């Protein structure tokens, strides 16, 4: 399987990964998270674990257990840590601790290296018997609720090191080393694999979108952080100059996001019956459809106001589409202003660059190629695999020859 990625990253990169893995082959490695399916973490682990095993590493993946009450607690923590929720009831902390203990008793955690993903299982560190423990944070910790963070920090401080997507999320109040590793996309997955042009046209037409006309696309949840109303406004402003412009906003329903429906309705109202605005709510496994829309788009937008990383940006760049992205979170390291797209802070600037890119085919193509190269060099799954191996080598003090 690993060999299949050589076509994208070259034999030398694969060779380096093999050599790094050889340095770690005596170590057992465990990844722990809170869900086996759904969400970016599970998606990445589903690919990473087989690749690690193929390298001869003794890598396992375990998922913690919890009841509905526990996941209500962790969702509340999650929101609080990302700065979007108010008070957390005091008894939530004991529920969290109860499930850490249950999981610690049920799971074999005696590995040489343990990656704990996100806050849900972070408290397991209290039960560590051996090994190097690494906390892999996938969320935006730049403005957390102080109370919840101060609670979680007591656990995180017990790890050997922490990993964040980008420097903005790293913490001044942590004394352990903090590594910066962005997430990645898999070029061989249904969401990113090559598609025949006919399939692209067929799928897009199925949703009443005209592949012959300019298409502005945003793929994201109906979430205020993704600024759907700003996207509609940017489309309206751009349409004054590009009358045949169409907008597709492609989202999926999320069970853990009660606000999704309300935001969808607000966006629908803002669209005001414009037949060129397509607000699509597709099932979460609509990977090929997302792929087709990204390939059909003239310009992709990711106008987030707040963002963790925004892998949909890498997905679009990989398909050679320049991205007009909000200056937020991980978008800033994917969209290089004027090189792979444009960073914007308002619907007006978003509309300006959208219009510019629709008019300038050559610029669009150059930026599209630069975007694909940027992703090829930095945000593919093999890079993440290599960086995780480097993190282990660093933690185990094996990073020098």
């Amino acid at each position, binding site marked *: 399987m690993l060999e299949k990625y050589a076509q994208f990253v070259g034999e030398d990169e694969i060779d380096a990964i093999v050599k790094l893995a050889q340095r770690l082959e005596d170590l057992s490695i465990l990844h722990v998270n809170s869900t086996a399916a759904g969400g970016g973490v599970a998606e990445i682990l589903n690919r990473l674990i087989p690749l690690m095993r193929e390298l001869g590493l003794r890598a396992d993946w375990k998922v913690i257990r919890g009841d509905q009450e526990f996941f209500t607690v962790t969702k509340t923590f999650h929101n609080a840590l990302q700065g979007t929720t108010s008070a957390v009831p005091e008894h939530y902390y004991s529920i969290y601790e109860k499930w850490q203990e249950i999981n610690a008793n049920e799971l074999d955690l005696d590995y040489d290296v343990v990656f704990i993903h996100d806050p849900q299982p972070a408290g397991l560190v209290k039960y560590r018997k051996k090994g190097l423990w690494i906390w892999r944070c996938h969320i935006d910790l730049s403005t957390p609720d102080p109370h919840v963070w101060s609670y979680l920090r007591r656990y995180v401080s017990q790890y050997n090191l922490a990993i964040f997507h980008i420097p903005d999320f790293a913490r001044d109040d942590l004394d352990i080393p903090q590594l*910066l590793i962005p997430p990645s996309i898999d070029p061989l997955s249904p969401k990113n694999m090559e598609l025949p042009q006919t399939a692209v046209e067929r799928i897009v037409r199925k949703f009443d979108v005209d592949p012959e006309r300019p298409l502005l696309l945003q793929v994201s949840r109906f979430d205020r952080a993704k600024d759907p109303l700003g996207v509609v406004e940017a489309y309206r402003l751009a349409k004054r100059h590009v009358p045949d412009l169409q907008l597709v906003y492609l989202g999926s329903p999320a069970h853990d996001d009660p606000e999704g429906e309300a935001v969808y309705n607000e966006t629908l109202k803002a669209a005001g019956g414009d037949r060129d605005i397509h607000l699509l709510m597709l099932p979460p496994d609509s990977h090929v459809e997302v792929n087709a829309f990204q390939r059909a788009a003239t310009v992709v937008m990711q106008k987030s106001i707040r963002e963790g990383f925004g892998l949909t940006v890498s997905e679009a760049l990989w398909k050679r589409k320049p991205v007009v992205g909000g200056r937020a979170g991980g978008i800033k390291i994917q969209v290089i202003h004027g*090189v792979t797209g444009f960073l914007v802070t308002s619907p007006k600037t978003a509309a300006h660059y959208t219009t510019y890119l629709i008019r300038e085919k050559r610029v669009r193509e150059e930026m599209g190629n630069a975007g694909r190269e940027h992703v090829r060099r930095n945000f593919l799954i093999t890079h993440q695999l290599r960086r995780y191996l480097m993190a282990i080598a660093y933690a185990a003090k094996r990073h020098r020859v």
Partner: protein
Amino acid sequence: MGLGAKALDTRGRGIPFKFYTAYYISLYSKMRARTLRQLLQGIEAADANTLFHHLFHTIRSKHLIPPRYTNDFAHWVGEEVGDEELAAALSDISGAEPATIEDIRKELVAVLEPHADDRAGKSEFVFVAMEPVVVETSYVAHTLADFLDLVEMVPGESIVYHFVTRRVLEGTGRNDFSIWLEKNFGLSEVAEALSRIDPLMYNSEESLRGDILKTLKRYLL
């Protein structure tokens, strides 16, 4: 001027050149700058690994459209603070041998100090340190002919490791290529010529590789 193609099969003193490559772990340094004054304070306080990361990060970024500035400080000043004059001055500092990271720091400070006021960037400059993870490649040169061929073939990361990282960060004082050419073959002229190449002026591994090859061919072919 060249040695001639026939002379390239000599093994010199018999010391092979083993190519290594390096990838870099990025580490949060706990320093951030919002204004030019804070950027200056950060540059003054940063450790060598942090300065190295921000100075030589661009050479490894490999964009199809090369960035306008050759280091992260200049990029932030130009793109975020909007002072193009200062950005150009910061971008054009010198990093050729024998400059150490401390020499480069002094030059950065001298350029930035007179302008270091409270003008802020659109977003913060976050100082990031880096730690190289060195990996052995399967490329080994025994002769000058091997060496020429391999400089063209090895990964770009390997060129930067031997030409920049070893000298600037690991304190060898000189790039590995020059050291080997002189030590194994006594070729001090070509070694000197390589030493005059300033890696800070490049914003891609391939353009640096191109100039190293051009210099080698001029003296060896």
